[in-house]
């Protein structure tokens, strides 16, 4: 019997058998819940009022989009995403170039140090930064006062500085990943390119823009994709440092969804907010994949 099954069919069968557990798991615990959330988003579904659960159409969405706080958290999310990404790229590039320029032993050491933030739980990093920037008990103000600055700056009660602390904490956690990716990319660039550029009289800066950057384009796009998602999905850092304050200035889309769901216990509205986030993420993914795909064709 076995002989009659073609190689192609057998491969198909084996392939599907092997990926089945992973695919089913991903569908069951990833995709199906997202679909259920989508269906909740059209319901009046409040945990404190469970007997009243009913279909309300688009009302949750109308309520969310009609509230000025939605546009505020959307703006916060965008600000957070852009600034943190810029900072992380800057630090990531610096880190990668420093590591690339270092000798073998030094590179190992720097790489080790750079990995530490990656391995520390986000919530712990959040508390670390909250403590660092605590204006009474934290060291940042003490150090600033030694440098001639204010010893009493209140970081977490002003919208812009609270956002800065959140961004700093996120950047501290995330840039190692970027640095490592960029370093891996840097090491694939053939040294001859730089040598021939040097012969042509190109300076370091010129070769950075003409050789380094173009060669890292693919990795940069992947990094940007990952970090955009990361910025939209950030939770523990905000949960730990500001809880969305002051005056909701660090509350993001996702944090707002969390508050609807698990503080207000409003599953309908929270699900609608979660669905909006999912849609934004899907849109960005598609955009990036298009760009990445185009690059692959080139």
């Amino acid at each position, binding site marked *: 019997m076995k002989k009659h099954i073609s190689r192609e069919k057998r491969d198909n069968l084996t392939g599907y058998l092997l990926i089945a557990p992973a695919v089913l798991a991903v569908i*069951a615990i990833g995709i199906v819940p997202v*679909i259920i959330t989508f269906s909740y988003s059209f319901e009046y579904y409040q945990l404190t009022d469970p007997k009243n659960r009913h279909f309300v159409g688009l009302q949750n969405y109308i309520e969310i989009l009609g509230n000025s706080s939605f546009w505020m958290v959307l703006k916060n999310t965008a600000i957070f995403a852009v600034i943190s990404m810029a900072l992380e790229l800057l630090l990531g590039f610096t880190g990668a170039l420093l590591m690339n320029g270092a000798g073998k032993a030094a590179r190992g050491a720097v790489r080790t140090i750079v990995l530490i933030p990656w391995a520390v739980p986000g919530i712990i990093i959040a508390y670390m930064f909250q403590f660092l920037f605590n*204006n009474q008990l934290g060291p940042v103000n003490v150090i600033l006062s030694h440098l001639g600055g204010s010893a009493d700056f*209140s970081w977490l009660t002003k919208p812009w500085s609270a956002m800065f602390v959140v961004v700093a904490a996120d950047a501290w956690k995330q840039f190692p990943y970027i640095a490592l990716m960029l370093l891996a990319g840097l090491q694939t660039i053939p040294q001859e390119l730089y040598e021939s550029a040097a012969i042509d009289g190109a300076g370091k800066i010129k070769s950075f823009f003409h050789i380094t950057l173009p060669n890292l384009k693919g990795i940069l796009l992947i990094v940007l994709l990952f970090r955009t998602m990361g910025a939209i999905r950030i939770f523990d850092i905000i949960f730990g440092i500001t809880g969305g304050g*002051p*005056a909701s200035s660090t509350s993001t889309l996702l944090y707002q969804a969390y508050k609807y769901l*698990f*503080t207000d216990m409003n599953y309908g509205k929270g699900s609608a907010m979660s669905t909006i986030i999912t849609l934004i993420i899907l849109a960005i993914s598609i955009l990036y994949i298009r760009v990445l795909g185009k690059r692959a064709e080139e």
Partner: protein
Amino acid sequence: MKRISAVLLAAVLTLGLLTGCSGKNDGGKSTGGKIEGKVTIVTANDTTGAVKHMLEAFQKEYPDVEVEHQMLPGASDDVKKSLMTSFAAGDTDPDVIACDIIWVSQFAAADWLLDVTTELEAVKDEYLGGPLKTCYYDGKAYAFPDYTDVGLMYYRNDLVDHAPATWDELQSMCREHQGKDGIDYGFVFQMFQGEPTPCNMLEFIKQNGGHDLLNGRFSMANENTYEALDFVKGLISDGISPEDVLGWRPDDSLSVFSEGKALFMRNWTYAYARTQLDESKVQGKVGVAALPVGPNGSESSGTLGGWNLAVNKNTDNKDAAVALAKFMTSYEAQKIATTERSTFPTNKKVYEDKEVLEALPYLTSVRSAADKAAPRPQVRDYPTVSTIIQEYMHKVLAGGEPNDQTMQAMDQALNEALEKMK
């Protein structure tokens, strides 16, 4: 769609992986008036051991009841989240819960708490009026008053001989002492965007003759409120209070005060015992008084806080659960709680107990403040009201938006929310 997906998820999850089962049988039954079986009680974290001793006393009286005590460490919002999820699922456990007074109406409206009107009515004369009121929702009782709390003025009695009676006096006393004797700040309070904001801000407003709910509607956009907001902003801009108070919780103020850096502090009753610990720099230098009043205010009233004990409506051992909740709030149990946990009893008799007064001599002086304490708006969905108040108050205090427009917008938002609760 929903059902299909749920079934799919369930099917895949059970795919030979799982046998997880947390179901258990605690079928406590009361047979013929005898109270027995098992009950679970959930309280906030208690490191003093008071709850343990209270439960031991309960066991002596009800030896046939087995009590499981679970503690939920975390801020009260986290505790609340855990409780709500259990209730919403219709769990029979926990049977008895300790709940913040501001949760009672919401939980009762959601039909999660057992009606204990008969039981409470029988003993209600034993309790202080303010805390007792927090046990009621819509004319029925859903909880027993456990301990009470109130916003108080703490002052350094080594530097000043009395607490200020008015805002003007507060400011002038602060100006006189700031910069001397290690006093960096005149007055510290807590205005974190969370429950501290309504607690503190409503206090300021009410000390200035203002109000929150008036005749069933929110009408806070008036001079009394604006004046209170300006006063708070003035405290910060004049350097009497650090700007940080806008991000502080009670403990942040306490640590500044305990370091000897502040002349006055607004805080809850728990703070007193903490200022008298060995590591405190103000040990033996702290006086307690009522909060000062504003120019339009007449009588001082701090915000009412505190906790109650309630019974899960779905409890599978009603008799034992009610007996436990009742016992934990009785004179005998509250005496243990007061002496060991330094919380303020709701049972009047405890205030007259000699042993208690020996352990907590300041109890009598606070009693009048506790009597006058003002509750936060007692509406069905208080959390929504609180969130709105936090948001708009911070728009003014931190965001610098104008008093009148912001407060008018807040009234409107609050009244819209109120409409939805009907």
